[in-house]
């Protein structure tokens, strides 16, 4: 293969330059007189130096600000903020409890994230940085305690119940028909929480089987990612009926929007709702204070208001 070597021959500093190209043997030489190419004539609208400099300055400023925010680790919550992972059925009850807690302990700030207990359990195994976990199924905190991820012991804070709920303009008389309401022809879609990872979904499916209607309604079930999304499905009318948590059904947002029927407690396994404080928490004091608040008299009263049964003290 022939190799072409390029030399830049001597030229003055002006625009014209002379190149000499030769092959290996230097037998063949070519001299080229190059003019500086006129690049970017009107394409580059930013020939103006001022614009260039100010663009780079603002660019640099944004980069610095970004790295500053990145490096400062400002995403690490300051110690006074408690992060709580709570089962979705506690959506309204826990909001009230947090508000009441803030009155007693104004210095503490609590951020609650609601979701399905199974999801949180999976996240905890991947190192999710919550301080406190309120699960709708005590089995999850128990498993966390077994893997050594918990500080303090698992605590039982409530017993949950499920209801059959229909929107208020539904023709179905759910209080008279009970579970048979789900067999009505006007009920096309029944919303339940996903039994794979939501305890209320598992309870709903268990109740449907125990009351011998599961086979007839199985094809009409739609699954919500957690019990709160399930409630949203029915409340918005997307589903015609739903098996919801009692705590959601009696909440102010849902109470006037529909009617419900309490599923008999013996139709599904007892819904023991338990919680645990995480060992990785940086806020053990506040976490313990909040846990004791929820388990205390005022907390129990609020939970009772939202339809939870309470464990013996």
């Amino acid at each position: 293969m022939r190799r072409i070597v390029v030399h830049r021959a001597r030229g003055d500093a002006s625009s014209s330059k002379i190149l000499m190209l030769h092959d290996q043997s230097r037998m063949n030489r070519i001299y080229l007189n190059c003019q500086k190419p006129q690049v970017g004539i009107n394409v580059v609208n930013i020939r103006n130096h001022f614009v260039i400099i100010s663009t780079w300055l603002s660019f640099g400023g944004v980069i610095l600000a970004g790295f500053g925010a990145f490096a400062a680790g400002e995403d690490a919550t300051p110690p006074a903020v408690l992060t709580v992972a709570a089962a979705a059925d506690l959506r309204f009850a826990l909001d009230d409890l947090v508000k009441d807690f803030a009155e007693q302990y104004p210095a503490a700030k609590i951020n609650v994230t609601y979701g399905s207990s199974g999801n949180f359990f999976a996240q905890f195994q991947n190192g999710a940085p919550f301080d406190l976990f309120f699960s709708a199924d005590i089995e999850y905190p128990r498993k966390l305690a077994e893997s050594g991820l918990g500080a303090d012991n698992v605590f039982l804070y409530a017993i949950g119940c499920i209801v059959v709920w229909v929107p208020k303009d539904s023709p179905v008389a759910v209080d008279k028909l009970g579970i048979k309401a789900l067999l009505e022809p006007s009920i096309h879609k029944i919303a339940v929480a996903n039994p794979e990872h939501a305890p209320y979904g598992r309870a709903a499916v268990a109740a449907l089987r125990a009351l011998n209607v599961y086979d007839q309604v199985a094809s009409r079930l739609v699954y919500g990612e957690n019990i709160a999304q399930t409630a949203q499905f029915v409340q918005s009318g997307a589903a015609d009926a739903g098996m919801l948590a009692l705590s959601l059904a009696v909440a102010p947002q849902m109470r006037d929007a529909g009617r419900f029927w309490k599923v008999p407690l013996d139709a599904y396994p007892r819904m023991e709702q338990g919680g645990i404080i995480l060992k990785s928490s940086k806020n053990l004091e506040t976490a313990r204070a909040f846990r004791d608040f929820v388990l205390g008299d005022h907390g129990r009263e609020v939970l009772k208001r939202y339809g939870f049964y309470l464990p013996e003290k």
Partner: protein
Amino acid sequence: MDWRAIELSLRLSTLTTLLLLILGLPLASWLAFSRWRWKFFVEAVVALPIILPPTVLGFYVLIAVGPHSPIGQAYMAITGRGLPFSFQGLLVASALYSLPFAVQPFTAAMSTVDRRLIEASWCLGRGWLATFFRITLPLAWPGVLTGVVLSFAHTLGEFGVVLMIGGNLSGITRTISISIYDQVQALDYGAANQTALALLLFSFLVLAITYGLQRRGIAVWPAH
């Protein structure tokens, strides 16, 4: 109106775009100018996040940077914090998710630059890097701008990946799309509507201004 979520989303989008500029331009120029016969594998990998469901991407990112992975453990050893459920983890996931939306317009624009101009610059003695910044980039800037805007807008609307790797922590990983999802679940339709509308208007404004500024059209996808 969840201002923390809005601020978080904007911060995430800005930083992701910057990261993609820094990492994406070299990758794009290699894709545009390389003649390697197996280049198409790299092009396929870059284009993957377009068709991959966000949850799949989020799932694999979670496995790749989680506490049981070498990357996650190295990060934990250096900084003492985990990558999932943190803003930095979101940044990594967003950068991967928006990668093709940045790199493909960059590559398309750079491959339309006349090679003879680049070669002339080399002939005149400018090095590769100087040629890149003085000639290739200025000629390709509409495509670069398109890539920047697309990756910004795409990150702003991200949901599945953030859900998988974020943990919905207020002020840390609760971006605007998660916040809307959360508000709907809380049956707070008014707040959800407000936030969603704000996001819609902002995105529309950003896109309209950007496309208005560069009215000469440029191909978004590489024209081979």
